[in-house]
């Protein structure tokens, strides 16, 4: 316990606990997970806010992420620079949203961003195709991909603009209760 105290100040821990869904213990556990990715880079003393960023290659190699087809997108969405390089804060952010405690709307918002590959605030056909290819490892033919994407848009697009806005997506999520348990990474 003694050396744990020196990683963060009490104020820092309070801030972390107030702004994420984690307890002190989990925050420390996540810190050690983060540090284990690159022990030579991450200092054990975070009281003076060191500016440390781990590259995506390290983040993506975590066992929780390494087999996830969306790992790069996840890292990009949650990283401050948008390229998947993460500070400890980004790292905590990511797992906070993916934790069990996060509410549906928050999860839906980030899931939407993850699926929105071209960052245009809409899930359009090209995003869906990318999603599909990631999920099926390019096993569907082009025709099938197109049909599935059309079907998805047909089903979920409420305002008929040919793409899914965040509202459409949230509307769909509300009707898919499993989402809460599947958009969840245990740490």
């Amino acid at each position, binding site marked *: 316990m003694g050396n744990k105290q020196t990683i963060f100040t009490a104020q820092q821990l*309070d801030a972390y*606990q*107030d*702004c*994420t*869904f984690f*307890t*002190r*213990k*989990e925050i420390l556990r996540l810190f050690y997970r983060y540090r284990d990715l690159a022990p030579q880079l991450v200092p054990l003393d975070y009281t003076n806010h060191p500016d440390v960023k781990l590259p995506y290659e390290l983040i993506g190699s975590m066992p929780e*992420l390494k*087999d*996830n087809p*969306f790992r790069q997108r996840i890292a990009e969405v*949650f990283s*401050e620079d948008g390229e998947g390089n993460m500070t400890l804060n*980004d790292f*905590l*952010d990511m797992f*906070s949203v*993916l934790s069990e405690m*996060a509410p549906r*709307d928050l999860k839906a918002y*980030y*899931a*939407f*961003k993850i*699926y929105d590959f071209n*960052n245009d*605030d809409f899930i359009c056909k090209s995003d*869906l195709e990318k999603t*599909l290819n990631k*999920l*099926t*490892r390019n*096993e*569907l033919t082009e025709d*099938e991909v197109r*049909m*599935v994407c059309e*079907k*998805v848009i047909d*089903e*979920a697009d*409420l*305002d*008929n603009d040919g793409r899914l*806005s965040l*509202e459409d997506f*949230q509307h*769909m*999520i509300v*009707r*898919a*209760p*499993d989402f809460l*348990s*599947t958009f*969840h990474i*245990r740490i």
Partner: protein
Amino acid sequence: MTSYSNRGFFNPAYHDSETLEIDKRSSSKPHHANPYAGEDPYRNWGARTELTDQTPRYDAEQQRTAHRGGWQEESWRGGEGIPMGPVSTHQHDLHYSTFQIALDSQYDGSPSIPLPSSMSGNMTMRWRGLAMRRMFPNTDPAHVAFTEDAIRNQMENEEQDRVNELVAMSTRERIRAIRELPMSFEEKKHIRNQVQAFSRKPHHFTIFEGCSENVSLSMRRCGYSVRSTRQTLELWHGIMKEIGGKFGSSVLSYFVFLKWLLMFNIFSFLINFGFITIPLLVYNHTPNVPPNVNFRGLEILTGAGYFSYTVMYYGSYSNETLVGLVEYDMQLAYFFTIAVYMVLCGIALIFSMASSFKKNYTLADLASNSAWQLLCSWDFSVTNERAVKQRTNNLSVQLKESLSEKGQRELLTLSEKVMHFGVYLGSWLLSTGLAVGCGASIYYLCQYEQQRATDAASWSLLQEAETLLVPFVVSLVNLVIPLFYSLFNKFEHYSSQRRQIYALVLRNVILRMSILGVLCYYWMNVLPDNFSCWESMVGQSLYRLVIFDFFFLMLGSFFGEFLSNVIGTRLLPGLGVPEFDVARNVLELIYAQTLAWIGIYFSPLLPAIQILKFFILFYLKKVSLTQNCQPPRRSGRAAQMQTIFIFLLFFPFFVGALSMVAYTAWRLTPSEQCGPFRGLNNTFEVVGEWIDGLREIPGSEWAVWIYQHVIRSEIFYFLLTLFILVIIYIFWQVSQGRKELIVLLRQQIVNEGKDKNFLRDKLQNLQKSHPEKHPKQKKQKGLTKQRSDGHPSGGQSNSNAMVQALLARQQLEEEEEGRSIEGVPVPSDISTSSALIQAMMARQRAETHSEGLYQTPGEHVSSSSTAARQRVDGRERSTDEYGSSAIRTRVRAEAEDLDYLPASSIMMQAMDARQQAEEEERFQWVPAPPQNLAPSGSSALIQAMLARQQAQNEFDDGY
């Protein structure tokens, strides 16, 4: 939402706030009670430093492109109740008749600028940029300069509104709201600090408030540490993670359910042990065993013999009032412990069932299957490589199936339908028949056993072993018959997998209910007449059932999973590795739990056995799962299944157990010789006697009155029932109304979509029928023409040119309004898009020149982009010569740049330009402007008109 408008500005506390003070200072603004007044210095400054102001736009643009997520104010506001700024700003600005700026801020989707103020707060622009962009999806970088101030105000307002809103909340809610903000940690922390600073600075600071602040902080820390400790105590975290990683959340739900039941049992064990057993043991700790009864070992299986004289069963509890430090009435303790436990269980079940229904069933919709499969079904918790591979394969198979499904469904002929119906009917009859048959045979078996058993103090070994027959048969039936049911299921053709599972589950429930019903009937009606201490006999039977159920669960996983794994991998590879059957396994758990509930009255320590059983079962199932099974092929809707299971646990099983225990307590005569209730007519009488005893104590008349007039009066229950029925009816009606409302709202969304399409078509037609229109102002027309003419290439770039033309005209108009706003200088590197901004800025400046406004070029921003260089050239040239040649150059440069960009961004710009153009015209009360168009530019025009449509709507709302 406009009610929140600028509360921060009018709130005196805002001006006292230290944190906000920093904001104001750093954004080079003096105190301003009027947000508009604060704009002037900034704008002037921007105008002075003409060149340096280029850089922030690079930055802003990069921010924008980097984080173009979607953040919708409206929908999120609904969810969180945190008001956000832009609309209120608009309202406010209208008040101050800064119409132009307000409109810009409202409709111009300019990227947000990293302000000094935001830098000081260590804020990144991720979220705020998004907020802006979401509100105004059509971004026109060229308008950055015009709207910076407005945006800055907006952002400040937004933030202040949010902070105000958060300050108004209670600490707990505030933390929750902050946590749920979709921002990065840094942004959340910034908000949090602001809120804290705000709330820590009350108008009149007192010691008391300081204390309460400290207290609340320490309370919060205390709460966190409690949560932390609870997590430490959490069982099987690592195993759960492993299972979830390998098998996904649907299989994991079985283990979660198992754990939940285990907690139930631990709770009931603690209650029973603490309030019934411990007092008895303290009072009299040697079991009252007759001398000829010894522990022989078989008791562990049968629960009879030696065990029947221990505190395990009802029979050995005393009916006396234990006299120690305090008087402890065993009768009352026994009765109330069981009653309270049952009530608590019921409440817990009802609550978890209701919340589960609310979450998983109310809005669940089967229609969007593909969308669900694609976007919601991926299990992020799966971390095992093999499992991921399998999932991807399964998903592609499922998607292919769902694509070909449509064709298959229509092929069903009438004869096929009749045949299917016949199969359903047959299998239902068969399975119900089997269930009834099993129930009847068990009843006869029980009778046979009862004839052989005697009411002796000690049984011979053989007699004791004979008691094992019934539990053995019952457990065997429970193991074997479901296998038959699964077999029937293979012959039936269900249209969906869900129906198939529901049918299977329903049949299993009927089977188990019939068995339990028969057993209960036997225990209630036959045993009391034949045994002197019949409650203990029932307790023993339940004990045996629980033990045997456990053995058969182990056997089940051996046969069901291990053997089929061996067969599937070695003998018949066609069968494949088995999957973990969640439905069957969960039903087994429910059955086991029901036994424990029924037994709670007859054998108060049965939960201890149950705890042990579930604990071992957890590891057993885990090993069996990881060794024998493969991840499920179909990713079903696990959450809904789980709701069904909790419902099943509650409805037939818990309610059944409860009514059985209640019947026993109200109707049956307790045995004469043993147990806490000996000598009473029924168990409930204990309450009556207690009340009678209370009469003598002065001051307790009210309790007696309540007992006489409320508990024992039918009219009370009648009224209560009536009242509940009325409430249920009202809620039912409300929910019906809501359902209708949902349908209407959905319809409305669809209609709006149709409207949009219709308008789009109409605009398209309109535009085709009037290809040539005249600009409303000569000068503008000239400029537009020049640009269009000056354009070197056709096709795509033609539409680009049109877009540019629109933009240019728009800016021109704004120039005429006498507004020139420049940006804030922040150095940044240059990307294509920022180069575009540069080009546009330059063009705009060129136009400014042609309008006769002179601006001094400042220092040049170093730029690697050719466009930027061209911009500089262009500006220089335009300072020398007025007019069209410079503009033409600009347009060309921009067109080239635009070709690198995705078409969507061009469209966005077009829409934006168009919007603003419309706004301008509205403001000037001039009819819609004409456009000079090349045919290839038509789509851009449509977009633009559409945008205009929106703009109009919004503008009208603005009034």
